[in-house]
Each structure stands twice: as structure tokens, then as C-alpha cells.
């Protein structure tokens, strides 16, 4: 007869297992997936519907004014060959991915430490803080990829995007989103307040980035003085890559530079997040 050590129930106890560096993060993802299965409906509006509404309003509605004359084509060479809708479709994919990732890397992370405190529950298990950080970031990447794929599918249906370039744009969107979300998650893991700093991040970093870093018009339209600000924005690099993949061309050298910049932000962000998770959970 088998019995448990605790005497509660009779399910034979498999000995406690220590998940490895790959399995640990996957277990964290599995836990978050359980949450998602229950609540996914409540994420649809902001993750998929919102960017599509922007695409319709700006691409179709406002686009009917942009396509009007040669004025737009003079300012934006791409517009000589593609519609404004097609011009902003890949950029909105990246911008939406970055915004979704921002949402996932701010309040939910702070809540894991502060309100819901579920990260502390994980810390008491064999899953290490590093594995938890990896799992939390991996989850954001998966969420962003799924939302982006849904957006692309609908956008393709009304002709806003086409071709295999769209798949490359999806990969770019996930990379860009995570290049921003990973350092942000490290920040979220560090703050002690009720999350007021997030308002500042959203309004002074994310919103200006969305508006000025090439989503709706090329950064060449900006005054020369502020153009360098766009160049440090991860979103600009992602937009250049994604738009290049779908409607234009991007030189191999430029692409390497953009990818290099995004990857280094991502790697730095992951390392920072691991560190902040470990420090906070093992004080």
C-alpha cells in the first residue's frame, strides 16, 4: 500500500523534482496559460481590436486624404507605389506589439510582487527567480506573437498586408516589443509604489514613440533637432525593419544595425529582469 508522507490522501508521491533551466520557465508559462484560458476574452479589445480600429481609422479614413495628391508621395517615397493603408499596416503591427508588451510588463509584474504577490508563491517552489523571470518574459513574447498574428490575419483580409514579408514583420514586431518590454519588466520589478511611474512611462515614452517614431509618417518630417530621439526609440528600428520587409526595401547593412540594436536591448533587458527578480525575491 502506498501512502503520502503528509498522510493526506493516498496518491503515491513522486519525489520532488527540480525543473531544469528550460522546464522551469515553461512551467511558469503553463501557469500563466491557465490564467489566460480563463480570461482571454477580456484581452481581445486592447490586444487585437484596438490596432485594427487604428488601422481602419487612420489607414482607410484618413488615408483617403493622404492618397489624394502628389504632396504625400513627395514627402514619402513609398506612397508613390503603395496606399497609406499599406504604408502604416506593418508599422501599426509593431506599435501594437510594443504597446501590448508594455501593458504586460508593467502592472501584471508589479502585481506579482505587490498586490497579488503570486511571484512570492512561485519563489517558495523549486522554480528559481531566474526561471520565473524567463518564464514571465517568454509569456509576454507568446502573447504578443499571438495577438500580432491575429492582427495580420484580419489586415490581410482587407488587403492591408500581403506576402511572406508579413511573417518577417511579425518576427520583427515580437523582437521590438520584447526589446522594450524586457528592460521595462526590470523596472516594474524594482518599483515599490502603487504604479504611478507607469503613467509617466506610458505618456512620455510609449505614446510619443508611437506618434513620432515613424508609425504614421517618416521621422524625416521631424525637426532635425529631435530626430535623434526617434533613432534611440526601439520602435523606430522595428518600424523600419517591418516596413522594409512588407512594402519597401531595407539594405542588409541597415537591417543588421536595427536587429543588432534591438537584440542588445533585449539581452540587456533579460539580464536586468533576472537580476531584479532575484534581488526582490531573495532579500
Amino acid at each position: 500500500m502506498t501512502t503520502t508522507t503528509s498522510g493526506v490522501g493516498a496518491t503515491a508521491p513522486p519525489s520532488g523534482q527540480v525543473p531544469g533551466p528550460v522546464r522551469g520557465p515553461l512551467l511558469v508559462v503553463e501557469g500563466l496559460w491557465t490564467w489566460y484560458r480563463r480570461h482571454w476574452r477580456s484581452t481581445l479589445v486592447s490586444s487585437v481590436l484596438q490596432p485594427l480600429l487604428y488601422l481602419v481609422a487612420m489607414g482607410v479614413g484618413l488615408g483617403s486624404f493622404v492618397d489624394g495628391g502628389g504632396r504625400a508621395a513627395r514627402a514619402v517615397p513609398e506612397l508613390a507605389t503603395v496606399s497609406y493603408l499599406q504604408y502604416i499596416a506593418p508599422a501599426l503591427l509593431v506599435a501594437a506589439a510594443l504597446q501590448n508588451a508594455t501593458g504586460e510588463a508593467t502592472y501584471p509584474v508589479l502585481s506579482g510582487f505587490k498586490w497579488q504577490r503570486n511571484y512570492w508563491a512561485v519563489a517558495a517552489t523549486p522554480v528559481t527567480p531566474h526561471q520565473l523571470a524567463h518564464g514571465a518574459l517568454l509569456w509576454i513574447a507568446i502573447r504578443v506573437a499571438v495577438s500580432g498574428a491575429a492582427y495580420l490575419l484580419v489586415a490581410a483580409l482587407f488587403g492591408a498586408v500581403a506576402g511572406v514579408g508579413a511573417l518577417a514583420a511579425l518576427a520583427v514586431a515580437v523582437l521590438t516589443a520584447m526589446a522594450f518590454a524586457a528592460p521595462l519588466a526590470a523596472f516594474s520589478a524594482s518599483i515599490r509604489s502603487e504604479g504611478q511611474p507607469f503613467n509617466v512611462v506610458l505618456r512620455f515614452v510609449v505614446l510619443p514613440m508611437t506618434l513620432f517614431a515613424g508609425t504614421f509618417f517618416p521621422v524625416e518630417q521631424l525637426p532635425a533637432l529631435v530626430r535623434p530621439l526617434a533613432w534611440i526609440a526601439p520602435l523606430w528600428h522595428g518600424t523600419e525593419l517591418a516596413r522594409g520587409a512588407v512594402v519597401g526595401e531595407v539594405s542588409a547593412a541597415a537591417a543588421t544595425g536595427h536587429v543588432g540594436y534591438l537584440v542588445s536591448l533585449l539581452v540587456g533587458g533579460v539580464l536586468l529582469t533576472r537580476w531584479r527578480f532575484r534581488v526582490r525575491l531573495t532579500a
Partner: protein
Amino acid sequence: MSEEPDTVASVIRDTALVRASGLVKRFGDFEAVRGIDVEVHRGEAFGFLGPNGAGKSSTMRMIACVSPRTSGDLRVLGGDPDVDGPRIRARIGVVPQQDNLDNELTVRQNLHVYGRYFGLPRAHVRARAEELLDFAQLTERADDEVEPLSGGMKRRLTIARSLVNDPELLLLDEPTTGLDPQARHLLWDRLFRLKQNGVTLIVTTHYMDEAEQLCDRLVVMDDGRVVAEGSPAELIRAHASREVVELRFAPGHQERAVPVARELAERVEALPDRLLLYTGDGEAALAAAHRRGLQPVATLVRRGTLEDVFLHLTGRSLVD
């Protein structure tokens, strides 16, 4: 995994599941734990009794392998938390001071998700969850979200969750703080069953009744140090008396009564609102007090408790 048999063997040889010597925890300039020596043996229920801020929770977090020690030595289940943290955590259960359940999942999902973190197979976790729901008397609420549950139910769920990996050692940090009396008794009953089943329990509490109910052996902590150690009965024998007489006076009359009271008892403690007389025979001491002309407005003869032990050792009460 090659060291695993070695670790298991050492645990079998050594009955101490937890062994701490000269254990210190410092946060910046603040020394929360100032060099304590503690041993917890297999099958016993061990308590850390002390007021808030005594260093109990810091000690518990070090034992739970989520807070590295500053200095001293610590062995949990034969391993070093600094090196074997994940492997030790795989074999212990933790009930934190503040519930950290996932409020947006159901009761059952909380057990499933948590069990998976221990690398347990899905089928096993599912079966185990049903047993634990039954144990925690939560079967009827299994598919409800956690958020609207009562404090007592959430606490029972947290305890059930801590048992999902069938731990050899269960750490409970202030298990019943903030619960109403009925919920506390239900919880104590569940913990008592675990103890009967041979689970090793480590409990921190600032409630002396909880310590007396649950603990075979305990240490009294104050200001990061262990000030006494023993079974509840031993501690009461050594630091209090069999019986205690409590005398309450009208405002302003207590001070005059102190010299008289000192002649009637082995020891007298003056609290802001009453005098405590430590004596072997309470009724006799009370009769003597009346004979000597003391006129308290209220009197009580009771048994000595751990509260008295703590008061004697530190000059302060447990809950302030």
C-alpha cells in the same frame, strides 16, 4: 542528480530536519536575526513565539530557502539552502504570512498550477488536488474564483496548496493571524491532523494559545535572539508559575497595592491596567490579598501561560 542519494542518506542518519547555529540575517544596518541556534527534529511541531519584529519571519524565510543567510550555518533536510535551494524547496511546504493565492483562478486551478511548479505530472496533480480540496473542506467551492472566499477559506487553501508536493517539512508563518475564532479552531484541527500523520511542522506565532495548542517544543524570540527554549509546560514551569492571580484596581489605586502584593506571591508584574501575582496556589493568594485589605474591582485566578513566560523574559507582552 548524482549527489541525491548522498543527501537522502544524510537525512536518514540525522533526525534534525533543520539545524541552525549562529544564524544571522542583516538587512543593511538592521540586524533582524542575531545569531540563533535551533534544531527541529523529524515528526515534531516546533514553534517560534515572539512579538511582531522579533525576527521570526526572517528566520522562516531563511529556512524556506528564499532568503540567503548573512552568516552562521544552516542545514535544511541535510542540505545547504545557499547551494541546494531548489532541491530543498521541492521537499518542503510553505504557508506565508500573507496569502499569495492567484485570485483570478479557481480554487482547484490554484492547486493545479502550484503543483506543476514542483515538476509533478499533470495526472498526479489533478488527483492530489481532489484529496487536498477534501482535506481543506473546499470541495464545494472548488470551481469558484478565489477572490470572494472568506479569510478562513483562503488560509485553508493556502495550507492545502503547501501540501501539494507532499512535503516532509511544513513551514507556517502566522497561520491564523487575522482569522475569527471559529476559523482558527478549524485550521488548528487541520494542522493537528497533519501533526498526527507525522508531518514536521514549524510554526511562527505571536499567539500563545496557538503555540500551546500546536507546538511540542518552541523557542521564545525577542529582538532577533532566542531567549528561552523548551516545551510549553517546561517554559511555564521555569519562567512563570502554576497559577496566576490578576487584580484590577480603580484608576490610581494600583500603585499602593504593589508592596502588599509583593509579600503574597513569588513574583509580581505590574501592567498598566492590572497586577499579576505569580504563585503556586492562586485561590490562597487571592484570599490573603483580601485579608490584607486590598480592594480590587475585579479578580481572576488562572493557569500560568506562555504570555506570562514572555512577559517575564522580556518585560513586554506578545501582542501590543
